[in-house]
């Protein structure tokens, strides 16, 4: 099956990703761990752009960019340099942003996604490094704000901007690309997507192979899909009414789910790019082999290996490799000898589902020991899910000692309580172990099924046959059943 793309949709993305795991900012020594800090506490003369200060490039940011480039199968530039992008804005302390222009660190690359018609290749045009501006904080709503405060904690954070070819043919493909892209970045350990403002997307979209419109500054994957659905509908309507699509930039209003025109091409700003004279051009070719060594197994490779090694379904493998910490978690569980397929079901289907339901995201892990989740809306809610607990739970289930309903209850109980109890404790407290009565019931059912003659005798009036059946149940339960209960259950079953 080949996807026809009936509306001639072309979508290209520009993705800004904050390299928020590098410890320091792009051009100064300020800590990049500002997300819970008071405003303007992570600043220095350099990221405040005080007169006379100069940038010094954070080598780790370059290494991270190369890492990203290699993971995107991109060409790494032999020589790369920085440019200034000049514009005035209150969050931009120098009146220009240090970015890359005609010598980006990463050239052409690609990402394979699950497209409308199976595997689909999305071309990467380029990826370059740049610095983040500060952040404006409006007092009250944007419209009614009496003033604007500026927080420069974010100023000078290292960013990678990745530009794709217009290869996506539906909002769904755009979203799939973003999920995949984020997945890759998290694997590279250069980026924590859970932090606010960590990923911002601009989307270029056109219909009927026509003029593109840029939708700027969308902050979530879901938002991208919604913005594109709206924008495609809008463009199709304009054309249906005989109108023309004009080259313009639009803003996505998340609240109303619509795009609003910001400026047309004629009003487009001239950024007057020129080479940043305070930073020397760099040759990074020599760094590449060592950086390649540090590349982890990437999601696609890991997914294929999981299917092969653990015999699990593609769906489970995909879910388990959607986060590197989850993949490691699964491998730690399997390493303890539990059935990988059962483990995969409980982790990928049940645990992930219950985490999502509670807005819990995996924020960190202690490899081989636990994953640490927190609530996205209330980061004070933190839950540790230990490998040993999953092993215990899966083992109980696999041995038939607990029902699947009970196992789900154990997981929910772990996620709902901050007391860190083991599955065993929870099973005991709540009496979730398949109780005696369950076993007796099972034995009764089996006995009745296996002894049709005795049953018929009893129904024919031979009272003694009932004693025989009770004896069979006692035998099956190795004498643990209460004879009186067994008798009652048999009668209940026969009179059903």
């Amino acid at each position: 099956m080949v996807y026809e793309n009936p509306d001639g949709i072309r979508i290209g993305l520009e993705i800004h990703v904050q390299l928020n795991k590098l410890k320091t900012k792009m051009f100064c020594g300020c800590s990049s761990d500002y997300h819970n800090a008071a405003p303007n506490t992570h600043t220095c003369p350099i990221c405040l752009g005080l007169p006379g200060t100069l940038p010094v490039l954070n080598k780790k940011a370059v290494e991270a960019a190369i890492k990203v480039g290699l993971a995107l199968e991109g060409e790494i530039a032999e020589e790369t340099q920085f440019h200034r992008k000049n514009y005035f804005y209150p969050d931009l302390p120098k009146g220009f942003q240090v970015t890359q222009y005609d010598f980006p660190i990463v050239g052409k690359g690609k990402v394979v996604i699950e497209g409308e018609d199976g595997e689909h290749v999305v071309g990467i045009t380029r990826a370059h490094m740049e610095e983040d501006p500060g952040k404006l904080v409006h007092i009250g709503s944007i419209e009614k704000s009496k003033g604007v405060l500026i927080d420069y904690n974010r100023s000078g954070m290292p960013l990678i901007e990745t530009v794709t070819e217009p290869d996506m043919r539906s909002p769904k493909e755009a979203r799939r690309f973003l999920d995949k892209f984020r997945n890759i970045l998290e694997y590279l350990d250069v980026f924590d997507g859970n932090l606010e403002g960590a990923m911002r997307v601009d989307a270029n979209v056109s219909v009927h192979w026509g003029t593109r419109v840029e939708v700027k500054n969308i902050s979530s994957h879901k938002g991208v899909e919604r913005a594109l659905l709206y924008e495609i509908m809008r463009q199709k309507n304009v054309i249906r009414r005989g109108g023309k699509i004009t080259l313009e930039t639009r803003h996505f209003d998340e609240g109303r789910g619509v795009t609003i025109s910001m400026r047309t091409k004629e009003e487009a700003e001239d950024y007057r790019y020129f080479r940043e004279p305070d930073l020397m051009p760099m040759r990074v070719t020599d760094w590449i082999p060592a950086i390649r060594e540090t590349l982890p197994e990437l999601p696609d490779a890991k997914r294929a290996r999981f299917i092969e090694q653990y015999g699990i379904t593609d769906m489970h493998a995909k879910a388990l490799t959607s986060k590197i910490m989850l993949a490691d978690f699964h491998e730690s569980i399997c390493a303890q000898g539990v059935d990988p397929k059962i483990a995969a079901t409980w982790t990928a289907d049940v645990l992930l589902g219950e985490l999502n339901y509670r807005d819990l995201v995996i924020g960190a892990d202690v490899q081989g020991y636990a994953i640490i989740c927190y609530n996205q809306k209330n980061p004070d809610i933190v839950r540790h899910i230990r490998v040993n607990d999953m092993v215990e739970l899966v083992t109980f289930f696999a041995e038939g000692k607990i029902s699947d309903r009970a196992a789900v209850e154990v997981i929910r109980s772990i996620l709902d309580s901050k007391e860190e109890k083991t599955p065993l404790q929870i099973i005991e407290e709540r009496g979730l172990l398949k109780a005696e009565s369950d076993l007796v019931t099972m034995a009764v059912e089996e006995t009745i099924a296996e002894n049709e003659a005795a049953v018929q005798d009893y129904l024919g009036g031979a009272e003694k046959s009932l004693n025989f059946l009770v004896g069979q149940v006692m035998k099956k339960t190795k004498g643990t059943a209460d004879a009186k209960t067994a008798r009652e259950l048999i009668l209940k079953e026969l009179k059903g």
Partner: protein
Amino acid sequence: MAKWMSVAQVKEKIIEDSAEEVTARYLEVIGKSKVNGYTKVSEKALEHARRIDSEGHDGPLAGVPIAIKDNISVVGLPNSCGSKILEGYVPPFNAHVIEKLLSAGAVILGKTNMDEFAMGSSTETSYFGPTANPWDLERVPGGSSGGSAAVVAAGEAPFALGSDTGGSVRCPAAFCGVVGLKPTYGAVSRYGVVAYANSLEQVGPLANNVADIAILMDVIAGYDGRDSTSIDSKIEYQKALVDDVKGLKIGVPKEFFGEGIHPDVEKAVWNAIHKYESLGATWEEVSMPNIKYALASYYIIAMSEASSNLARFDGTRYGFRESGENWHAMVSKTRAEGFGTEVKRRILLGTYALSAGYHDKYYLKALKVRTLVKQDFDKALAKVDLLMAPTMPNPAFKIGEKIEDPLTLYLSDVNTCPINLAGVPSVSVPCGLTDGLPIGLQIMGKPFDEPTVLRAAYTFEQNTDYHTKRPPEVA
């Protein structure tokens, strides 16, 4: 105490009397100044000198006073760059060169006047009013480091720091009859120096003699991790102070003796070259055909970089602010009110040169010319050890004489700005007087060959007495 002292003499005086007394004496001279060379005299200089007396200091400049151009950041002193727009701004950090000076024990006397944001060759565009040339108070001291040159020439500081983007150390050195060095690009960290044109400028010393230049360079030069263009050359500048030019090959680029050169300047420079010949050096004419394009290239590059560098002065975070109904209006009014005419002219021209449609025609072309100019220097300096030419084609002009005619003023940089395009070192030394006004000889060398440049300058000084001449009006 003598009014004009070398650093060695100042140090002797400190031992004889005290650092406090020496500083007090300079402050007294500054108090009677006729040149308006300082924009701010430090209130802490005496206290600092006193502390050096009481606590002792073993740095090479212990207790020696110095004047600092007002675009170099010093904690506790305004850094106004001769502009209203930086009104009230006091940097919270020291420039690299200031850290070096302070750890060497130097006492900062104050900040010196300059053309606004170093844009000018006359120190007339300063928000603090023009500085006068000590040799003739009706004349300009040159610029943009006119304050630094004037206070050294007037005996208001033994030496000073300036910055040189297109001649801003050498031009005032020539006009005021002092020595001024523009070091090789990368030799001195620019950290903490407010940028006019980053790819061109260097901090440079001004002093009454070549030895003091070397002393200062030994303190301020060297690698600094905070400036990515900084290079560790490991040069020991004072070791270059050798009275010997035997066998040295001098190139005389005829393009530096172009139309409009003052005959006395030409004569004085040739006299100097013949002096070298008599001391055992040889000279030959060299041709640098692209020099004629240097000025245009220089101004386009400098203005382009400046248009970006000065964008940060928007009234939002520090300095002068004019109120406006919204942020954009506030920024517009602040910049309209805060910048002077010349600064605005250069921002506009630079913005134009970088704009879409003009970028390639102007900025890119200027960069190509820059490469050609650099090649001219490389070729010439492959044949000879040094190049010699007039620093300025004319002696100091009158205050107000050229300020209304920016193009004529720009033309006065014709012999100094090619050096900044090439990034090579160049020193200006006094080589004569015309009608009581000093003339400067410019000695240019290979990148990081300051030792040869300074040796030649030192030898000239040891065998002539031009550097001992003092301006009569302030004596």
